[in-house]
C-alpha cells in the first residue's frame, strides 16, 4: 500500500506542473501564437524562483514564513516568465517572425543562461541552486485522517497542488465564460473576424502570450519544489511534455486534466518501477521504463490527432489585409 500511496503522490507532483504549464500553452495558442518556448520559460521561472529562495535561506538568512516565501517565489517566477515571454510576443506579434524559431531560441537561451548565471551567483560557483524544502504539509488537518483518500491525497502534499487545480478551474472559467476569453479564442480562430468587430488582435495575443509566460514561469517552481532540493538548470523536458499534454488534451481544460493525470501516472510508475515487485522482477533495463511515457504519448497522439482541435489561426502572424 505504501508503494501505491507513493506512486499517487508522485503522480500529483508531476501532473500539477504539467497542468499549469499546458494551460499556459493553451492561453497562448488560443490567441493564435505557437508556444514552443514553454520549456525555456519554465527553466527561467524555476531559476529565478529558486535563486530567490537560495538567497532568502542561505545568503540573507531571513526568518520568513514558508507561506510568504512560497508566495514571493511564485510571484518572482511568474514575473520572470512574463519578461521572457515579452521577447517571444514582440518577435511573433509585432515583427511577425517565425514563432517556432523564436521559441527555440528562448529555450536555448534559458538553459544556457540559467547555468551560467547560477555559476556566477551561487557561493559555491556551481550550477546547482540549493534550497530547503519547507513547504511540505505532512498531513492536512482533518482531511489527512480520512481512510484511503487521506493518505492518498492529503498527506505529504503541497499547497501548490491545490493551487494548480484552482488555476485549472479559473482558466476554464476565463476562457469559456468571460468576454475576454471569447475574444482571445476569436483571435486564434479567425483574427480578421475579431478585428472587424473591434477586438485588437495585437492586444489579445499579447495577453495570451503574457499569461502563458506567467503560468509557465510558475510551473517551473511547481515542478521543482516537491521533487528536488536543488535546481540544476533543467526541467527535464516538462515544457515539451506540457505541449504534448495540450495536444493530447485537445486544447480543452477538462481534457488537459485527464491528459496530465495520464502522463503523471506513467512518469510516476516509470520513476519508481524498482519499488514495484512485479515490474522489478521482469528484469527489464530501467531505460525501457523511462521511455514508456514518451512511447505512450506517440501512440496516443497517433490515435487522437486525426481530427486536430488546434485553433485554426495558430502559428500565423496576423495580416490585416489577409482573408
Amino acid at each position, binding site marked *: 500500500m505504501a508503494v501505491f500511496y507513493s506512486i499517487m503522490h508522485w503522480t500529483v507532483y508531476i501532473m500539477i506542473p504539467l497542468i499549469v504549464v499546458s494551460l499556459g500553452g493553451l492561453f497562448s495558442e488560443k490567441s493564435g501564437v505557437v508556444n*514552443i518556448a514553454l520549456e525555456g520559460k519554465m527553466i527561467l521561472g524555476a531559476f529565478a524562483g529558486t535563486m530567490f529562495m537560495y538567497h532568502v535561506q542561505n545568503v540573507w538568512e531571513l526568518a520568513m514564513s514558508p507561506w510568504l516565501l512560497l508566495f514571493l517565489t511564485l510571484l518572482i517566477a511568474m514575473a520572470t516568465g512574463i519578461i521572457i515571454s515579452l*521577447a517571444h510576443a514582440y*518577435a*511573433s506579434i509585432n*515583427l*511577425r*517572425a*517565425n*514563432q*517556432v*524559431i*523564436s521559441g*527555440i*531560441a*528562448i529555450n*536555448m*537561451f534559458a*538553459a*544556457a*543562461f540559467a*547555468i*551560467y548565471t547560477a*555559476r*556566477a551567483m551561487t557561493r559555491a560557483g556551481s550550477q546547482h541552486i540549493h534550497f530547503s524544502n519547507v513547504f511540505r504539509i505532512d498531513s492536512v488537518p482533518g482531511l489527512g485522517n480520512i481512510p484511503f483518500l487521506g493518505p492518498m491525497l492529503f498527506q505529504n502534499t503541497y499547497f501548490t497542488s491545490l493551487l494548480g487545480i484552482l488555476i485549472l478551474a479559473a482558466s476554464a472559467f476565463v476562457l469559456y465564460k468571460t468576454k475576454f476569453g471569447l475574444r482571445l479564442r476569436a483571435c486564434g480562430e479567425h483574427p480578421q473576424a475579431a478585428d472587424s468587430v473591434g477586438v485588437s488582435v495585437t492586444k489579445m495575443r499579447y495577453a495570451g502570450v503574457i499569461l502563458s509566460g506567467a503560468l509557465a514561469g510558475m510551473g517551473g517552481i511547481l515542478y521543482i519544489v516537491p521533487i528536488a532540493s536543488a535546481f540544476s538548470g533543467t526541467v527535464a*523536458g516538462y515544457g*515539451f511534455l506540457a*505541449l*504534448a499534454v495540450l*495536444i493530447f488534451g485537445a486544447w480543452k481544460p477538462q481534457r488537459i486534466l485527464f491528459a496530465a493525470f495520464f502522463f503523471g501516472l506513467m512518469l510516476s510508475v516509470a520513476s519508481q518501477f524498482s519499488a514495484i515487485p512485479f515490474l522489478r522482477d521482469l528484469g527489464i*533495463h530501467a*531505460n*525501457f521504463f*523511462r*521511455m514508456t511515457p*514518451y*512511447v505512450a*504519448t*506517440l501512440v496516443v*497522439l*497517433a*490515435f487522437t*490527432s*486525426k*481530427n*486536430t482541435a488546434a485553433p485554426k489561426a495558430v502559428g500565423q502572424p496576423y495580416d490585416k489585409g489577409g482573408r
Partner: protein
Amino acid sequence: MNKDALMSFLSSLVVLAVGLLIGFVILLVSNASSAWEAFRTILTFGFRGIRNVGDVLLGATPIIMTGLSVAFAFKTGLFNIGATGQFAFGGLVAILVGHNFEGLPNGLRIILALLAATAAGAAWGAIPGLLKAFRNVHEVISCIMTNYIGMFLVTFLVDRYAFNPAIGRSQALPEGSNLPTLGFQYIFREEFLPGFYRSSQVNVGILIAIFTAILMYIILEKTTFGYELKACGFNKDAAKYAGINQNRSIVASMMIAGGLAGLGGALLYTSGTETMSAANVLLPYGFTGISVAFLGLSNPIGIIFSGTLVSYLFLGGARTQVLGFSIEVVEIVISVIIYFCAFVFLVKTFLGKHIGRLLRRGKSPEQDRADKGGESA
C-alpha cells in the same frame, strides 16, 4: 552574386553582428576586466594558427550535417527538431559497425558504417514523417518524443554492446574503423617544440559534409523530386491540386532529413575524437543544427558557411574558459543569434528597401523614373 543572395548574406551578417554585440554585453556584465580579451578570443581564436583552422573544420562537420537535416525538412515545410535523436542513432550504428565486422577490409567497413548510420537515421526520421503523413501528428511533438525515446534506447545499447566501464562511455573504435585523414594531419598542424607537431584530427568527414551539402542543393533546386518537396512546403493545397502526393513527400523529406543527421552522427563518432556517453543526456548537435540551418537561411550552400562559422565561434568560446568564462556564454550568444534569425527575413526586406533607395539616389531622376516604370510594368 545576384541581389537576392547578396541580401541574404548581408542579413545573416547583421543578425550575427547583433548577436555578438549582445554577447559582448553579457561578457561585460559577468566579468568586465577580461571581457574584451574574451571577446577577442571568440572572434579570432579560430584563425590563430593553421591547426585551429583544422579544428574549426572538424567541429563544423557534424553541425553542417544536422544543419542540412533541419534545413532540408524546413524547405519542405517540416520542422525537424528530432535531428538529435537521428544523429545519436546514426552515431550508435556507426560505432557498432566499427566494432564488429572484423572480416571486412577497413575501407569497406567504414563505408558500411556510414551507410548503415544513414539508414538508421532515416528510419528514425521516418517515424515522425509517417505519423505526420498518415495520423496528422504534429512533427514537433513527435520529434521531441522520438528524441527522448532515442536517447534512452541509444544509451541502453551503448551500455549493453559497446561499453567501456573505465571511462563510462562507449569503447573507442579500433584505428582501422575511423575515417581516413587523407594527410590533413600534415597540413593542419603546429610545431610546439622544434621537430614535434600537434595535428588537428580533421579528416575526410568535412569533405563528405560539403559534398552532401552540394548534393542536397542539386536535389532541392535542380530536380523534379526536390521541386515537389518544396511545393508541399510552400502551399500544400496547391501542391495537392497539382497532383503531388503529399504524404509521400512528407515521409521522403523526413527520411532524408533523418539520414543526413544519422550520417552526421557517424562522421562524428568515426572521427577518432569522440566516444558516446552512456548517460541519459540529449546530444547538443541537433539543436545546434537548428541555428546553423537558420543562420544559413536554409540554403545547403549557405549552411556550409554557417556551420563553419558556428564551429569557429564555439572553438573560440571554449577557449575563453582559460580566462575564467564558461562555455555557456557562447551558447547564450548563439541563442541570441537564433532569436534574431527568427526575423532574418525581416532584416532582409528592410535591407532590400534601404539599399535599393541608396542605389537609386546615385541615379538621375529620369533614370529612376524609368526604373520604377519598369518595375510597375
